[in-house]
């Protein structure tokens, strides 16, 4: 009973939050709603017994990703209302609904669910984190390492891309130097 209440509650909240994210015209609202939605999603993970995943969700998404977005938004004028030209709404809604219905139809097909066999069954008497650890560092070691390298590369890339000319500090430059740099179009 508790599980059902929790599910419906968080389902309602998640949907609302994400709906706000995609519809609002204030970037800041969108960011906040997204962050809230992420946290609510982690609730599902806890309900489903994937504790580790829930924790990662909160840490990575709400912690890291959202922080990144927040920093990113500082580059742009986030307080300004976002003006977006909208095309045909019916196409957008229609396509999305159609996709959803089709996915549901596929899920409901018996032949999909019948044939699933557990490859790495959950281990009894062991906590979720330990289970994850056992599988992650044995069977998925190589993907794990690859993911690690990928994250490293992404980090480097992020720094390089965003941090170009970071050594130039406008506060330390004189006005003429700033003009000069502007003429070079380094700063825009």
């Amino acid at each position, binding site marked *: 009973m508790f599980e059902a209440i929790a599910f419906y509650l968080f389902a309602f909240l998640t949907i609302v939050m994400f709906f706000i994210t995609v519809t609002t015209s204030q970037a800041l609202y969108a960011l906040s709603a997204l962050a809230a939605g992420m946290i609510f999603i982690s609730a599902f993970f806890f309900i489903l017994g994937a504790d580790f995943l829930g924790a990662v969700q909160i840490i990575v998404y709400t912690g890291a990703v959202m922080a990144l977005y927040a920093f990113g938004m500082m580059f742009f004028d986030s307080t300004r209302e976002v003006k977006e030209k909208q*095309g045909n709404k019916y*196409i*957008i809604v229609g*396509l*999305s609904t*159609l*996709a959803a219905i*089709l*996915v549901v*139809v*596929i899920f409901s*097909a018996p*032949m999909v669910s019948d044939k699933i066999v557990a490859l790495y069954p959950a281990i009894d008497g062991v906590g979720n984190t330990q289970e994850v650890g056992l599988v992650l560092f044995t069977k998925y070691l190589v993907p794990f390492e690859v993911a690690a390298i990928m994250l490293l590369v992404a980090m480097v890339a992020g720094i390089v891309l965003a941090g170009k000319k970071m050594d130039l500090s406008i506060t330390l430059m004189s006005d003429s130097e700033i003009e000069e740099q502007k003429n070079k179009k380094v700063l825009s």
Partner: protein
Amino acid sequence: MEKYLYIALFAPLVSSLFSALFTATPKKLFTGIIASVLIFTSFVASTILLLHILKGGEPIHVTLMTWMATGDLYIPFGFVVDQISVTMMMVVTLVSTIVHIYSIGYMDHDKGFNRFFAWLSAFVFSMMILVMSDNYAGLFIGWEGVGLCSWGLIGFWYHKEIATWASNEAFIMNRIADLGMLIGIFLVYWNTGTLQYDEAFALMPSLDSATLTWIGIFLFIGAMGKSAQFPLHTWLADAMEGPTPVSALIHAATMVTAGVYLVVRSNELYSLIPNVGLFIASLGAFVALFAASMALVNRDMKRIIAYSTLSQLGYMFAAAGLGAYWVALFHLMAHAFFKALLFLGAGNVMHAMHDELDPFKMGGLKKVMKWTWIMMTIASLALAGIFPFAGFFSKDTILEAAFAEHHFVIYGVLLFTAGLTAFYSFRLVALIFHGEERYKIFGIHPHEAYRFMLIAMSPLLILAMIAGVFQEPFFAMVEEILSAHEYHIHSHTTLWIMLVGTQLFVALAILYAYKKYATWSSVPDGTSPIENSFFYKLLFNQYYIPYFYETYIVKPYREASELFWTKVDLKIVDATVDGIAGIVYGTGEKTRQMQSGNLSTMLKWMVAGLVGLLFLAVAFGLAARYSDEIIVFLSALGV
């Protein structure tokens, strides 16, 4: 004897090649002389061969080399000299020699002098191949070869539009017939397995009559083209645009008789199919009358003679069709002599009259051109069949044959035509040589031809007079290979009545022609009532057949060609190809606009694609799930 065969055959080739070396250079008299000498050599060799055959020698049969051999097909360059071919060789080489010598004078001032002799000798060579070959394929070589040379010679004065037009017409019309000939050859090959005359004829009696009939018909179609039989006759009259010696040699004496030669050569075939023979005879009789009627009113000297040639070819076919092959061959020979003489005489007149052809603009020429007058008169007498000239013996025998075979309609037609022949021949002679000197109005000063030209013509003159005496030896010679019955009417009384009757009829026609035309004094200008009568117009326009061909065959062909090119080829076939390419290109051009570069639009497309894929997944999933039911359903629909 083989040596003489090769000399007879190849001397004209050598002559042609020799003259051809000088085609691009100005006139050189010696080409004409050397060509004439070489043709004369050929004539001498032919004479030796004739004597050999006359003495009862075996026919000479040689095989030079293989021409084509593949599968079961074997065609050699084989030549045979037997009674038939030696006759033809004599006719060809004799007339050729005379025409060559005559041409030296006739083409005196022409800048294509050397080229003329190259073509003329090439023609003789082709004709020799035609008559000497021992198989149908070799015959076809000569057949096409004479067509080619005729093309080159009719269009000899190629700066004249009408001459080149006539040459193309002759070539193409001959080609139409040659197709029939070719089909006939194919039929012979696939039914007998060989194209050699002797082997093929030996097998023919065992074939069923339908096949033989088809062979006979198709071969005769070939003969119809070369011998200008109806309905392929129009080219012959137009071919008169060529130089007159050419008309004498090709379009009177030799090439046009090739069709008759073919029928005579294939006599063993045609004896097996008398129905086709009857058709040939009927067509021959019809053409005899038909052509003679056109000659009655024509106002072009050479065309009149051409129609008379056509008419005489009709006689030959009538004889050949009735099975009187030797008579046909004999008439061929006699006709070659007097008709060549007639043409050469006409050439003299033309020269004298500066290429004027309308006999109504001549008149009284016998004073200045005495010898020509004599020659043409005798030739016309021979043509009309007056005793004792050559035509009497050959033509009268045809009439007898028709009578003896009880084909009285053919006999009647031929007899009537004999009268017409006499009339138009002497209409021509009377208009040219008698009466007032109408040419003076046009300021022409005629003169007699060179003496050596006249001398060259004299053998023909003699032969036109005395060729009749050869009838008996000729018959004796050819009866060995031609189914030769002498045609004798059973009762002598009938025979005499026929002979005398015919002679009287012809003589009356001659007298009538003289009476009507010998005193002619004016040039017709198209106003007299007779010129406006229906029949006159019908005959003068050659029964409107050239007009018919032009309007209903040539013109539609030209228009259809244009239509095929501009409408079908460019607008349909090519446009379809370009259309397919255009669809591909257009699709690319249209879908290119999807790549607007706008990420948002592309994302929409991405979602659309996702939906599409999902839809496919569902569809295939359902199809796999219900495959049995679908098969049942489809089979119920009968798919």
